[in-house]
């Protein structure tokens, strides 16, 4: 008999509808999977057994009444920077240890309203700052394909739980690649939507102009289903897109015949590992075989994207994280004066990477430096948008590897932040442009670890992006599962 934890959302939905199993069955399967994998992975920060059970019972009742909505009764995990009413939310930081929010973020509320069963909160790099989930104040998450390696980050927990099946789908947040890179490293599908498509209300801010909530799933159609449940205008987020949501899943089966696909020259050269390049080229060849018109083209400003990102994101974070001061919530370390209390709280409550970025950002915004750093970065951003627009005049989507390498060993990049920053080299530019992008697993590297393929599209181009992604998925026929994707007790 199939282990329910191995089902896709689409399969689970079909089974719930025809009564083959219940939402409680799905939840039990996911929790069994968590019981086996968690000791090795540490992908969850909180498992909400009680809340999940209540939601599953309610979903089963609703299904019995004929509810066929796509996410009703489906076990979903949320990155722990998504604010959940009544469930501890820490953003992976000591400074929020024990904080139980009095409200739900908009995406969370929409998921609850859609009948999803929220199973728990997943680990992340503190405040989503990192590319390996090693920066969590609560310890790293490990990659279920090889527990000596990282799952990527910052949404490493969400990627890992989907990879092992302790949730059928998950949400992460992507500021510079934080959904796509871990999806790539764990053999899952991860999408960063167009900036503004998903409300940021209730997403603990890292860099406001870059952050987007997005789905991580086993398949492209599942990712589309998850995204559809949360997309759309929100009056509580002034930057949310006030218009028609793209038809995300309409063209999943349309194939790529007649589509123009551009290979980004800057992202298939030096710095990318040969096996990643090989899998990328094989995928591009399959797309051409499927009828796409493939060209190689240049997006020159990508060269400056990493530098611009590491000024803009820290600058915004230096201001966004100012609210963590020990006054109203979270950690408070006493001091002789209010100022001292605030300073001590922040010094003790934030981890080294967060402090590094706050310092960097504070400096970049300081009088006399603003124009050279922050101002210049904003100009790069304008250039990037222009270059992307020019590229999308010629092609429907752009493609590249998602990550320059497969999963790297735990600890191998922590000593040198810059090396770590380079793991986002392929993903960062789309955040600066505000465009959507998705990572789809296309094969295994020499190290038997997954390789992801990235499809980028112009703003609100989710329909064509998912259309190409679905074709990539069919072509790759990637069926391998992570070593820990099992309900048998294992000693990896």
């Amino acid at each position, binding site marked *: 008999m199939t282990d329910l934890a191995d089902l896709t959302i689409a399969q689970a939905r079909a089974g719930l509808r025809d009564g083959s199993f219940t939402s409680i069955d799905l939840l039990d399967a996911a929790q069994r999977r968590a019981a086996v994998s968690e000791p090795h992975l540490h992908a969850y920060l909180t498992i909400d057994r009680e809340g999940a059970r209540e939601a599953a019972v309610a979903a089963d009742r609703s299904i019995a009444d004929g509810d066929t909505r796509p996410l009703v009764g489906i076990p979903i995990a949320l990155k722990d920077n998504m604010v959940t009413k009544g469930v501890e939310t820490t953003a992976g930081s000591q400074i929020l240890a024990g904080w139980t*929010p009095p*409200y739900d973020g908009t995406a969370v509320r929409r998921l609850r309203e859609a009948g999803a069963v929220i199973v728990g909160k997943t680990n992340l790099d503190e405040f989503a700052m990192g590319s390996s989930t090693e920066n969590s104040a609560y310890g790293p998450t490990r990659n279920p394909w090889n527990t000596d390696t990282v799952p990527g980050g910052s949404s490493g927990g969400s990627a890992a739980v989907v990879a092992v099946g302790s949730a059928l789908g998950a949400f992460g947040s992507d500021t510079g690649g934080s959904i796509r890179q871990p999806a790539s490293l764990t053999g899952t599908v991860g999408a960063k939507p167009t900036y503004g498509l998903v409300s940021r209300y209730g997403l*603990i801010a890292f*860099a406001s102009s870059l952050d987007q909530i997005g789905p991580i799933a086993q398949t492209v159609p599942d990712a589309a289903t998850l995204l559809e449940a949360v997309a759309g205008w929100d009056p*509580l987020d*002034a930057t949310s897109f006030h218009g028609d949501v793209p038809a995300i899943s309409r063209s999943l089966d349309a194939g790529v015949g007649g589509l123009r696909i551009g290979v980004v020259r800057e992202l298939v050269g030096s710095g990318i590992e040969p096996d990643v390049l090989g899998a990328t080229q094989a995928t591009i060849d399959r797309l051409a075989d499927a009828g796409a018109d493939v060209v190689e083209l240049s997006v020159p400003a990508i060269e400056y994207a990493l530098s611009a990102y590491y000024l803009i994101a820290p600058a915004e974070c230096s201001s966004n994280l100012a609210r963590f*001061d020990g006054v109203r919530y979270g950690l408070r370390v006493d001091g002789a004066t209010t100022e001292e209390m605030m300073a001590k709280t922040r010094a003790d409550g934030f981890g080294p990477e967060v402090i590094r970025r706050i310092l960097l950002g504070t400096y970049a915004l300081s009088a006399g430096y603003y124009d050279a750093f922050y101002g210049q970065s904003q100009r790069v951003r304008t250039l990037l948008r222009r270059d992307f627009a020019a590229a999308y005049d010629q092609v429907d989507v752009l493609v590249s590897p998602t990550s320059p390498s497969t999963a790297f060993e735990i600890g191998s990049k922590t000593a040198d932040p810059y090396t770590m920053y380079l793991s986002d080299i392929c993903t960062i530019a789309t955040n600066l442009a505000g465009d959507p992008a998705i990572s789809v697993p296309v094969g295994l590297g020499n190290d038997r670890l997954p390789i992801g393929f990235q499809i980028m599209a112009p703003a609100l181009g989710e329909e064509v992006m998912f259309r190409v992604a679905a074709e990539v998925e069919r072509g790759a026929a990637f069926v391998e599962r992570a070593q820990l994707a099992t309900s048998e007790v294992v000693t990896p």
Partner: protein
Amino acid sequence: MTEWEAVIGLETHVELQTNSKMFCGCPVDFGDDPNTSVCPVCLALPGALPVPNEDAIEGILSIGDALNCTLTEHSLFYRKNYFYPDLPKNYQISQYTFPLCVDGRLEVDVDGEATTVGITRVHMEEDTGKSTHVGEGGRIHGADHTLLDFNRAGVPLVEVVTEPDIRSPEQARAYGMELQRIVRALGVSDARLEEGSMRFDANISVRPAGTEVLGTRTEVKNVNSLRSMQRAIAFEIERQIEVLESSGSIHQETRHWDEAAGVTRPGRTKEESEDYRYFQDPDLLPLQIDEAWRDRVVERRPELPAAKRARYRALGADQRTAELLVDAGDLAALYEGAVERGANARTVGIWLTGEVVRYLRSAGTDVGDTGLTAESLAELASMTDAGELSATAAKDVLAAVLAGEGAPRAVAEDRDLLQISDRSAIETEVAAVLDQHPEALERIRDGDTKPIGFLVGQVMRATGGKADPRMVQELIRGEANG
């Protein structure tokens, strides 16, 4: 001796009385218990985001419009970053480049002389919460603990910044009063200094008269009334002159006005000026104020105090009466209502700013709580103008009307207070009295005016006090000269 000239610029903060706060739906209400008018947004909980309040923006635009500013098409929100416990986000959403309104001016009357104060900008901010420092004299340093109330956090705040055009404490006060009137006329704020819904900071420097270079300025804060602003500025000007004349120098600093001692004192000195690291708020899109919106603001502009005063003056009110009426909105409404009903504007103005104001002050009540209406006021005015009531009788009638005892004519008739103003009836009485006192008439004819009063008194007695004394006197003089 050098003659000194003061250079003063004012920054005014006005709290807008909108239904909700600047960036969230919490009500703007200070009467509530501490921390009851709060939500995730104004408490800056993790993940919460601001959404601009369009009513507040419109309120700011209306102030800019009233101050003859250019309303900008594109406006930006900025973050002003600084740490303070009553500032929940530890940054304040404010404006920096591209404020909502720029380049305005306000005409200000100082002792009957018209002056113009340039307005640099009118921009939007949000208020902070309130700190109450407990112990050690209520100061943050050394306080035992601090209580925080965030009900005020996020209340829309307008900042109006003038050019350094003000030259005297009197002009500063006149500017403050006129700005207060405008804000009240617009209905966007009650603008009470005592309650902090209007706050002034004054930037003050002095320089030798006739020179152009600006002296080093100090910023004076903590003035709780227009009067104390005037006093504080006057003190600070004198202080600076004294320092400079004894070869000292002025430090750029913030000074606090000590109302009780009547002096300004330096605040805590900072080693260097604070770097607020302004940058455009990425949570908020640029504001587009389209033409239709700007037109709507201009269309909705009510009659402003200056225009109203000019209109009242044209009706015959003097400057002081016009000011008094315009400043007391409910009296102005009565004034206009009575004039509309055909009463003489001058008479109505005199009654309102004289007897009515005196009555209201002594009774400690508002005119709305009295029996006085535009109708009754018009009736009273026309009765006095027609000589139907003596001045004394009119006061009694007004008092009765105010007390709600009825309309003026009814009260006067009831109390038998109507004057005889029928000329022929009075002529008869005058003739009778003169007949009885021919010697008095003779003395008057000889140039002695004293008996006039005696004769008037006799006529008044004969008529039971109801004759119009002016008419009586006129008739007696006529007889004497005739």
